[in-house]
């Protein structure tokens, strides 16, 4: 669902960098304490897996694209800080090796998907995991994708309101939230269901293999 370069105004991406920078710093400090020789190879594998899932993109009318994230898996296996960092790396790799997403969109994409998505997964799993773990995984994944998609749609939708020329014409993305919300959320409701099924499949396997070293 990430936003490509050229659609976001500096009024959006500069504050987003200001918010993302301390979040990356916090996550790096936590990651340094958490990473060891057992966790590092698994993190690399799941980051590569998330990268591959994110490369299967379908352009959507709302100015973004639809694809699986792999973020819920990262969060369930490694916790919020490592998942946020790993997903940021996925976004950087996509920008630098495929030209997807981009530099100016990086902080918005990282915050909406990497941080908020991971926090939702961790919160829902912590809240419901004790009742029924599999249901909690499915719900956590579905809700995290939908909330991230809602945030992306809103960030795009406010562009014509905050970046206009003297005549009131939009300087960047031209559609408001009335267009972006349904255009992004409707396809993502289906994509999120598919991602929840995939996450459940891999999460069960990871639990059998005892890879869930840092369950959210």
């Amino acid at each position: 669902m990430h936003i490509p370069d050229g659609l976001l105004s500096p009024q959006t991406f500069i504050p987003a960098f200001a918010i993302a920078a301390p979040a990356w710093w916090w996550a790096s400090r936590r990651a340094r304490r958490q990473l060891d020789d057992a966790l590092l190879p698994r993190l690399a594998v799941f980051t590569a897996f998330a990268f591959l899932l994110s490369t299967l993109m379908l352009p959507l009318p709302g100015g973004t694209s639809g694809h699986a994230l792999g973020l819920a898996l990262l969060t369930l296996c490694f916790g919020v800080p490592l998942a946020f960092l790993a997903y940021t790396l996925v976004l950087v790799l996509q920008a630098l090796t495929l030209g997807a997403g981009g530099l100016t969109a990086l902080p918005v994409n990282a915050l909406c998907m990497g941080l908020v998505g991971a926090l939702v997964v961790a919160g829902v799993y912590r809240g419901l995991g004790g009742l029924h773990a599999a249901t909690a995984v499915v719900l956590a994944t579905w809700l995290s994708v939908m909330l991230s998609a809602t945030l992306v749609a809103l960030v795009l939708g406010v562009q014509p309101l905050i970046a206009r020329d003297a005549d009131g014409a939009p300087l960047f993305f031209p559609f408001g939230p009335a267009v972006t919300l349904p255009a992004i959320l409707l396809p993502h409701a289906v994509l999120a269901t598919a991602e929840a099924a995939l996450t459940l499949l891999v999460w069960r396997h990871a639990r059998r293999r005892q890879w869930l070293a840092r369950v959210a």
Partner: protein
Amino acid sequence: MKPNRHSLALLGWAAAVVTSTLVHEPAVLAAALLGVLLLSGRGRWALATRTLKAVAAVVLLISLGYVGMGWLGGTLDTAVLLRLNLRLLLIAMLTAWMLRDVPLITALSGLPSAQRWLVIVQAQVALFRRLAEDYRLARRSRSTVAPTLRQRYLGAGSLTLAALDKAVHNAETVTQAMRARGALDD
């Protein structure tokens, strides 16, 4: 960070992308696009074709949506359409140029941690792709008819889990080898 020619090119790309978001005049954006096309040297048309393929879907969807809504609402502004298309094309062309001419591993030579992560993840991506290709060829060589949709889903599920097992095993071996050689000691 110890800058080399490729590090500077990477920084130049980043600066150019950010600068292109500060320019709103379609004529200036068009001139910049033409400049990038001329400066990108031999293979510029292949680069332009790759750029168009990369952004065509996004640009067409947004542009057609804008034209349709503007036409229905009587608010169609060609300057908005031009600006949007030119900016997206310019940034995509700059990125395609950078991807073609800047070897990322060399460009990140001043940042050993970033370089190491890039290598590790790229190696895992390559491994996943090779496993998927092996599986596809193995399935094709053993089947005389095309698999049904259900078989495809079941096969994809099995492949995902098998690929994860192999990739984790491979990554653990590589990490132990790197640790044994002192590559992770910093």
